[in-house]
């Protein structure tokens, strides 16, 4: 985090290129540097494009449904199922085939993108915010506050999360909101730990002491002085949480405690598909592909964001 200190040291031989380099380094915040690195990272750009496409899928889902003339939950028992009641494969009416109830797999994949994106982004965002607040408080106030909050984080981390998530949802009743809440609850503790560690370091820095001697109160020191300095790791971690949250949501839907049918979700589709994979491969392959490509893109993007904020991680598939 020593941003501009080096730029002020004049190079021993003041070559033109050195001066130019010094000029270009000067005045750039770590954020600008990170953004700059991301802009030059081909993997980051490629995965961003995929993510934007998936987001577009979620947005235009109703348009696609209109274009092909199939509702996401409408059952086409005459055209979408064979006389024996078996799903029909990809054809000109159903581009990606149908499911066991004669619904259009293509349209449902588009609608399923909504669930996955919403769960992934909102749950990670919630987890990051909750972890940030708890970590800030534990790290800054120390003593009893720290002990209580840290033990709380320890207990949350020591719970068998999947068992708990299922038991919890079985009682409350499944819905997308509940899934998001549960995912956020079982993800925030690691963010909290990271933030707490960072705050412990920042709290002792000179600029915090300076702020205090100028008469700044705790709230100001926390949010104006410390928060911006712990934000980078939180953003990195939150980005890496998104694919995990997407998989978590899909797993809950797969186990029947996620999104409630007939609402289309990728996990739910793959759950139905398990009884039909022998007669309808498209029912496994297409939703599976959608899910896999999405999580892959988010993982690659997450790695890029991490490298951009912390270039010490030399990466394998480097763009430059």
């Amino acid at each position, binding site marked *: 985090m020593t941003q501009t200190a080096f730029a002020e040291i004049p190079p021993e031989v003041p070559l033109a290129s050195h001066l130019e380099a010094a000029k270009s380094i000067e005045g750039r915040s770590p954020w600008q540097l990170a953004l700059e690195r991301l802009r030059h990272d081909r993997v980051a750009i490629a995965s961003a494009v995929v993510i934007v496409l998936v987001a577009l899928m979620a947005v235009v889902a109703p348009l696609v449904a209109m274009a092909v003339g199939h509702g996401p939950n409408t059952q086409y028992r005459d055209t979408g199922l064979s006389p024996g009641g078996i799903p029909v494969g990809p054809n000109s009416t159903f581009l990606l085939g149908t499911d066991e109830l004669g619904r259009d797999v293509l349209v449902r994949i588009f609608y399923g993108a909504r669930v996955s994106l919403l769960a992934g982004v909102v749950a990670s965002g919630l987890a990051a915010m909750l972890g940030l607040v708890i970590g800030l408080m534990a790290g800054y106030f120390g003593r009893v506050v720290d002990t209580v909050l840290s033990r709380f984080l320890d207990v949350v981390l020591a719970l068998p*999360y999947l068992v708990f998530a299922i038991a919890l949802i079985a009682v409350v009743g499944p819905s997308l909101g509940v899934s998001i809440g549960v995912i956020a609850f079982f993800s925030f503790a690691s963010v909290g730990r990271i933030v707490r560690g960072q705050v412990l370091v920042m709290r002792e820095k000179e600029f915090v002491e300076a702020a205090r001697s100028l008469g700044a109160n705790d709230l100001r020191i926390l949010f104006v002085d410390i928060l911006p300095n712990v934000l980078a790791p939180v953003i990195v971690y939150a980005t890496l949480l998104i694919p995990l949250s997407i998989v978590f949501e899909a797993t809950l839907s*797969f186990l029947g405690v996620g999104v409630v049918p007939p609402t289309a979700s990728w996990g739910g589709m793959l759950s139905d598909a*398990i009884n039909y994979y022998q007669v309808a491969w498209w029912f496994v*392959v297409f939703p599976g592909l959608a899910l*896999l490509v999405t999580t892959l893109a988010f993982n690659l993007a997450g790695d890029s964001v991490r490298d951009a904020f912390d270039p010490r991680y030399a990466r*394998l598939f480097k763009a430059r």
Partner: protein
Amino acid sequence: MGRFLVRRITFAVVVIWVAVTIVFILYFVAPHDPARLIAGRQATAQTLADVRHRLGLDRPILDQYASFLWRLLHGDLGYSYVNSAPVTTIIGQDLPVSASLGLGAAVIWLLIGVSSGVLGAVRPRSLADRATTGFALFFYSMPTFLLGELLLLVLFFRLHLLGFDFFPGSGYVGITQSPYQWFVHLVLPWFTLALVLSATYTRLTRASMLDVLGEDYIRTARAKGIGEKRVIVRHGLRAALAPVVTQFGVDIGQLVGGVIVTETVFGLPGLGQQIISSISRQDLPVIIGLVVLASAFVVTASIVVDLFYAVLDPRVRLT
């Protein structure tokens, strides 16, 4: 050492207590009536009252809670609402299935993860490194149930159509019944669980190994003329394993939950299936029993890992 154990075991007991209490509160606050589920829809008020009395559900909640904790302390997890079998018996029946799945998978994911991580770290940016890193990212992004379904589709069903029945599609055979059938039935579930988890280990091992191989003492070891194999395994890997061991503790601890998905995909009658079915039947004693087991697993694994840590790295002192 003694203080360490006392502190950690106290924490373990607290975690289990918290877990049990949360589940207990959840299922008593929730508007569910296990008696109605058991007695059926047409049950008269009298039958319902009888069932409630038999299950002890007519007693005050705190009273039920206290007697539950008291029995728990004596290793008694109570009886299933559904078939009146002791919960410990139910767990005892399902445990071998999950243990076969979990332990077998653990061996595979450790072998694959650590060896591919070392392979990548020893020759960074080589073809082998790129391949293992790519595979790791692929499986890291793969949901377990999806991999299971794909393996079923390709290795079970397509091969079956071609007339090769190497892998059965589902079911479980006890190792005492037929070791061969046991093995064959578990191959696909093992790899389903292991490949997804191994990705984390490849990434961890590679990163940790790269760090360690850059240390001065590795250069010293090489300068002394020690063979490269010995440098990598004895000097490098031993030090690089610390984060791997930590992760292994976490994953083993979470295994009771981790096997749920794989058991569901492959129809293995283990603890994971039991969790799903007992929750759908609102069989509270079984649910609590499984939560106790799962929590105990997590905390025990983390204590064992910390002990192992001290063995691995003599500088670590347990306090």
